[in-house]
């Protein structure tokens, strides 16, 4: 029996080339393993290009990310890169923030022009975060050419640092090697949750820089912890989408996740070989490329002036 090259996806209502889907999963899983981002920003548009409806693409992608982030978290856990304590606190914040965010969207939608605000915020945010990370890591790479590791860069005692230390309930985060109040990850998790809900993205892109710059965690632990969190977020999204909107195509997700779980394992190894600053600068480049693409889409006249409701 020869392996069929195409499979019909009953929920997506189209057939796909198995090899194409497998490869797509592998590529996105690789990025996810290296950088600790979910990869929805890449996967969803590519799936739409392959003829999958936008809603099904986004929901099935969440299902796939569950596999990739399980695999990635496991790989990073073995490398000692997952800070569970921090991860859980951020997660609690994220769930709270997500709930608030959904309410904010309702208000924005009622006021009209919400989509406009969201797109602009997203582009600005990506531009700012990507630009900052890029410059910062470039600088520190130049400064510490001899230094092998991203050994703690002692920063000036800013107002932020003083507040950091003044908050109550200080506790040690051993994996990350930082000491801070539990309020910090809770509050920042909430903030990211709100933003992620408003923008309709997983939040990896925002969470990673927040952990690096605001929680001052080492880059490798950031990647592992971020994957751990994405795992929970995407489990939630998969179950919600499947039960409420029936948009999860499991066959599609399964093909993707075989590819992406393998990709995530390889990615985690590649990431381990890179230094913190190199990782940061690569991620920054990726963020800037995504921003460039979004900006282009906003400025260039689209081919077709109609879009289905329900995509990203």
């Amino acid at each position: 029996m020869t392996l069929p090259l195409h499979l019909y996806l009953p929920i997506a209502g189209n057939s796909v080339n198995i090899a194409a889907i497998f490869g797509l999963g592998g590529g996105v899983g690789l990025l996810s393993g290296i950088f600790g981002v979910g990869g929805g920003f890449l996967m969803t548009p590519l799936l739409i290009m392959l003829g999958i409806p936008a809603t099904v693409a986004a929901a099935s992608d969440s299902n796939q990310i569950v596999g990739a982030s399980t695999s990635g978290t496991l790989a990073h856990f073995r490398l000692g890169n997952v800070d569970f304590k921090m991860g859980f606190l951020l997660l609690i914040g994220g769930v709270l923030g997500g709930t608030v965010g959904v309410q904010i969207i309702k208000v924005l939608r009622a006021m009209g022009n919400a989509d406009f605000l969201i797109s602009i915020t997203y582009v600005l945010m990506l531009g700012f975060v990507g630009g900052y990370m890029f410059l910062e890591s470039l600088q520190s790479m130049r400064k510490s050419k001899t230094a092998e590791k991203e050994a703690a860069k002692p920063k000036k005692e800013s107002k932020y640092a003083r507040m950091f230390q003044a908050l109550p309930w200080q506790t040690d985060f051993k994996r990350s090697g930082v000491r801070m109040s539990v309020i910090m990850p809770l509050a920042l998790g909430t903030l990211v949750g709100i933003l992620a809900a408003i923008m309709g993205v997983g939040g990896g892109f925002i969470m990673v820089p927040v952990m690096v710059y605001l929680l001052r965690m080492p880059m490798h632990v950031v990647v592992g912890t971020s994957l751990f969190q994405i795992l929970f977020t995407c489990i939630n999204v998969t179950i919600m989408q499947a039960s409420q909107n029936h948009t999860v195509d499991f066959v599609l997700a399964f093909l993707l996740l075989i590819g992406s779980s393998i990709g995530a394992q390889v990615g985690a190894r590649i990431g381990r070989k890179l230094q913190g600053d190199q990782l940061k600068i690569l991620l920054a480049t990726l963020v800037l490329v995504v921003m460039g693409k979004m900006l282009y889409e906003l400025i260039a006249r689209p081919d077709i002036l109609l879009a289905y409701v329900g995509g990203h």
Partner: protein
Amino acid sequence: MKLRHLILTTMLIAALCVPAFAQGDMSMQVTPETIKIDTTYNGTTVKVEGQAPEGSQIVLRIVGEAGELHMKRKDKALGLLWMNMDSLTFHGVPVLYIVGSSKPLDELGAAGKELKAESMLNTIEIEPDTAARPELIDQLIKLKTKERLYQEEAGEVAMGEVKDGMQSFMATLPIPSRLAPGDYKLASIAVKDGQEVAMTEKDLKVELVSTPLFMAKLAFGHGALYGILATIIALVSGLVIGLIFQSKGEAH
């Protein structure tokens, strides 16, 4: 009688739900009459053979069920950025529209024009109603054409031999891989001097079988269970692949 016939024909085409008439003038066989979508389905073809009045041109048309579409219209915000702006609902949009003919529709006069996607979509309703309607319909056709769900000139109808005032025809129509189960209608229309002279229609069923049917039943009938299963399988797959990689690592 002839005039009444003609008026009726025009009205019926305009209404786009033409029941078979003048059956005696035309006949057709369709293979297969039911398209079964199994796991390896990747588009297919439908073979049509029939008899039509001598000297006429043949147009074959497959139309899917009419449904509702929720869309956003892209427009410039602040005169600079292309954004999804107004929400629109299109009522009565067929999921599939495939036309094949023995001559391009543009060369078939008024009847040919009536069979183009633009004419068919004239009957749809757009909510809220807008002055930009013709432009929107045009964009909708573009979108559906890009998805390969609307195809004009999809296949050529070959004309065969003439016998007793009837001419045989034969065609193979493409069915796209993006196909939803449901009831479709296949019509064959004979056109002479820009007028429709005969038509006949058959049902074309599209149904899911085997694995796709099972998956669809589970996903739409037991959404929550399906979601949980999908999650568990994803988790287990991730773990298993993680373990395989670990054992490889230890071997070194």
